[in-house]
């Protein structure tokens, strides 16, 4: 058994992990980054449209407007003080990324260029604002590359293609993680004073998703199994514009540049659902609208998709109707320059040239608002009153601060990972200076080794590929954009059956050690099943509609009874877990409370939870 000793162990090498690694190592901590992928393969690199920050380079803007949009976008489940930190720190973080060399596009004033994005407005919803700082339509790629490059410069220690499969808990504190070196199949112990999960989301629970195959929620599942409750798991975002059937993301930046959604009768239907923001309403609103259009027989060819139209002729016609400045009008070259990857995806996968034809799009499973609960310094908290679990940190999609509430705004995922990756990295560096090493328990990898042996030696008849596909179908069908008690119960029942087959009837073909992807995929399916389960079980308990959780049997938001975060915990039994769900964790409403304390009249209170209108 190989044991590696580093003060700070970071799990995952996407934006949050690399940001934490950079800031923790700059602060003097001995850092190791453990990642199942080479860092540049991480899914941060798939983020397209931009990173929101109130730089005000093109329109007047302030962090408080970004805070307001984030809180409103989250359907008031967002923790308000955290949203304020997000918006304020975003400005510094984006400037720091530029100082690290990130090649943002530029304005005519040589400053970072910004574009419109869904739900981002000026002056508390008055009008859409250009806030998303962008590098063509590959902003996430540039962030990932820049951070990896800076980690090379700072000689950060990487363990690439080491997959973390368990966490070592000693007396309620975390003493490290256990990983499998994919190239050899050997277990390694990473003994640390602090462990930091930046391991991404679990979009692979659903069949139509923008997420990479690697996004199997390993970190969240490990934390859950080791006693950390997960927060707000019922809120999973469906991005309105995935490529039809494939789910590949088409950035909201397309609509930010003027693109419009059109139904089968040629109508720009978002005008009906969101008279002011129209196609740039928040994602939950737009995804539901596409489903409703489909239900009323107005999807294209009745196949459940609509058209996203960025043809200059269409865009300029609507710009003219809206009385926009002629300088804003676009031509083919603008589209080619600003959205090159989108054009490439459509030409490659659909044979559709978006400059000449509209793109077929449908909602695609995209982003987990919930996850491992943390405070604003990325310290993991394990109960409703915010008790910190010593030595455990989380940031990025796998974490829930919560800044996204019930629905994340576009660009805020990148903001989240740079802001809280950075804050967490710095806090962790401080922590390891003062903390003692916890002695490792005897045989720390015994339990997880037994689970891998079970899978490797199983002789059942169920292939993991088949079980995974069935899980993804039932999640798409029953715990998707719209939900009812009945569909969710059906989902829970299906998941129970799949779980039973996974634990009693699995088989794998590959019995070897080196790069046994058959074995790793089967183990990942176990993680996905846990996350699907906790999603369904919290969703069925929340008897209201809020943000991305939209119930047809409880259509309204109910602040009186449900303005609270959910927490779900797992008793650690893999095959037959029992879960506990609570709704005791209050939402932080401190900005609203400040307004009340300042005597702001009710109709002028910006942060008071109210009906969302876009």
């Amino acid at each position, binding site marked *: 058994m190989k044991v590696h000793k580093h003060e700070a162990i970071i799990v995952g090498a996407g934006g949050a992990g690399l940001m934490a690694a950079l800031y923790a190592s700059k602060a003097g901590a001995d850092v190791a980054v453990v990642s199942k*992928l*080479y860092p*540049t*393969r*991480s*899914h941060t*690199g*798939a983020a397209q449209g931009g990173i929101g920050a109130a730089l005000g380079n093109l329109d007047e803007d302030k962090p408080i407007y970004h805070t307001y949009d984030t809180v409103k976008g989250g359907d008031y489940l967002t923790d308000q003080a955290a949203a304020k930190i997000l918006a304020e720190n975003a400005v510094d973080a984006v*400037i720091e990324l*530029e*100082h*690290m*060399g990130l*090649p943002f*596009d*530029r*304005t*005519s004033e*040589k*400053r*970072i*260029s910004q574009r419109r994005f869904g739900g981002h407005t000026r002056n508390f919803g008055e009008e859409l604002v250009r806030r998303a700082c962008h*590098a*063509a339509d*590959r902003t996430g*790629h540039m962030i990932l*590359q*820049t951070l990896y*490059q*800076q980690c*090379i*410069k700072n000689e950060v220690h990487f363990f690439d293609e080491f997959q973390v499969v368990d966490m070592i808990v000693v007396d309620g504190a975390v003493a490290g993680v256990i990983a499998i070196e994919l*190239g050899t199949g050997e277990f390694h112990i990473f003994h640390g004073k602090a462990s930091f999960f930046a391991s991404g989301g679990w979009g692979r629970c659903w069949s139509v998703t923008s997420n*990479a*195959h*690697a996004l199997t929620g390993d970190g969240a599942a490990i934390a859950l199994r080791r006693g950390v409750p997960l927060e707000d798991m019922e809120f999973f975002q469906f991005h309105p514009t995935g490529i039809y059937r*494939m789910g*590949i993301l088409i950035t909201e930046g397309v609509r930010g540049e003027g693109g419009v959604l059109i139904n089968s009768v040629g109508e720009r239907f978002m005008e009906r659902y969101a008279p002011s923001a129209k196609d740039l309403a928040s994602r939950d609103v737009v995804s539901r609208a596409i489903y409703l259009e489909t239900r009323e027989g107005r999807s294209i060819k009745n196949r459940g998709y609509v058209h996203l139209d960025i043809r200059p002729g269409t865009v300029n016609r609507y710009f003219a109707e809206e009385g926009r400045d002629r300088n804003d009008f676009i031509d083919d070259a603008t589209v080619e320059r600003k959205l090159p*990857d989108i054009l*490439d*995806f459509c030409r*490659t*996968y*659909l*044979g559709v040239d978006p400059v000449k034809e509209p793109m077929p799009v449908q909602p695609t499973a995209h982003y987990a608002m919930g996850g491992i609960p943390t405070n604003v310094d990325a310290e993991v908290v394990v109960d409703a009153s915010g008790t910190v679990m010593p030595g455990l940190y989380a940031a990025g999609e796998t974490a829930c601060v919560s800044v996204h509430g019930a629905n994340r705004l576009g660009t805020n995922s990148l903001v989240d990972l740079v802001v809280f990756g950075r804050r967490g990295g710095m806090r962790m560096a401080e922590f390891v200076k003062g903390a003692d090493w916890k002695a490792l328990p005897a045989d720390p990898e015994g339990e997880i080794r037994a689970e891998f042996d079970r899978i490797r030696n199983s002789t059942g008849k169920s*292939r*993991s*590929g*088949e079980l995974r*596909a069935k899980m993804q179908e039932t999640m798409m069908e029953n715990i998707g954009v719209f939900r009812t008690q009945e569909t969710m119960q059906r989902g829970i029942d299906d998941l129970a059956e799949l779980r039973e087959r996974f634990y009693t009837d699995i088989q*794998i*073909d*590959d019995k*070897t*050690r*080196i*790069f*046994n*992807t*058959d074995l790793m995929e089967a183990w990942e399916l176990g993680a996905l099943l846990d996350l699907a389960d906790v999603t369904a079980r919290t969703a069925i308990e929340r008897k209201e509609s809020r943000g991305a959780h939209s119930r047809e049997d409880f259509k309204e938001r109910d602040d009186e009874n449900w303005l609270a975060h959910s927490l779900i915990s797992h008793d650690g039994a893999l095959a037959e877990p029992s879960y506990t769900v609570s709704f005791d964790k209050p939402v932080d409403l401190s900005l609203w409370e400040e307004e009340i304390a300042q005597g702001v009249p009710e109709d002028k209170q910006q942060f008071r939870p109210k009906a969302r209108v876009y």
Partner: protein
Amino acid sequence: MDVTFKIRRQNPEVPGQEKPYWQEFVLSDVDPADRVLEMLHRIKWEQDGSLSLRRSCAHGVCGSDAMRINGVNRLACKMLIQDVGERVQIEPILGLPVIKDLIVDMEPFFDHYKRVMPFFVNEDPVPEDGRERLQTQEDRELFDDSTKCILCACCTTSCPSFWANGHYVGPAAIVGAHRFIFDTRDQAGKERLDVLSEPDGVWRCRTIFNCTPACPRDIEVTRAIGEVKLAIRKGRTDGIIRPNEVQ
């Protein structure tokens, strides 16, 4: 339609499979618009779980699934069946040691990348107003193409000069250097050009052009290499040399 996949396989742990061999798989109900990667998944998930490959994003942005498809380097997730026909031959990329099936040892590739100082260097104090460094969009465009690189290794492992000499830094590393050499904000261009002037640097390139069509991001790789060669010959010491000035 039915499609036959002929796949180059190798598994050092299984007696009889230590040396490379070919294995055929037939898939039915294949749609011409299906991705090659999805079909490899179908083989793995329906027929033989031991088939080993790397993959992640499945839409050409993460760079995991570079392989030789019908003799040319491609990302399996960016090739559709209609692009490759009913008989598809798949091998690992060339020039890096094969570990298992389609998985090669990427360490030499990343080591070469790290040699060219692939990171932004600017030791000047940040602007006094605490804001971004300034750059015109025209200057930003000078290195736009090379910022698209996803380090998939399609270019480097299509290069006969790299096949002949694995110490050659290879096209991807040069593209990585180009991205900074032509960035007006960067200050370490000279050091990078020094590295690339060494015997295993840019002069190993014989302008064979295999790299450019191999790039799944449509980077003009050979052009980027040419610009770096010209910058060395011109003797860049300070300030930006624009690609149009070195020609």
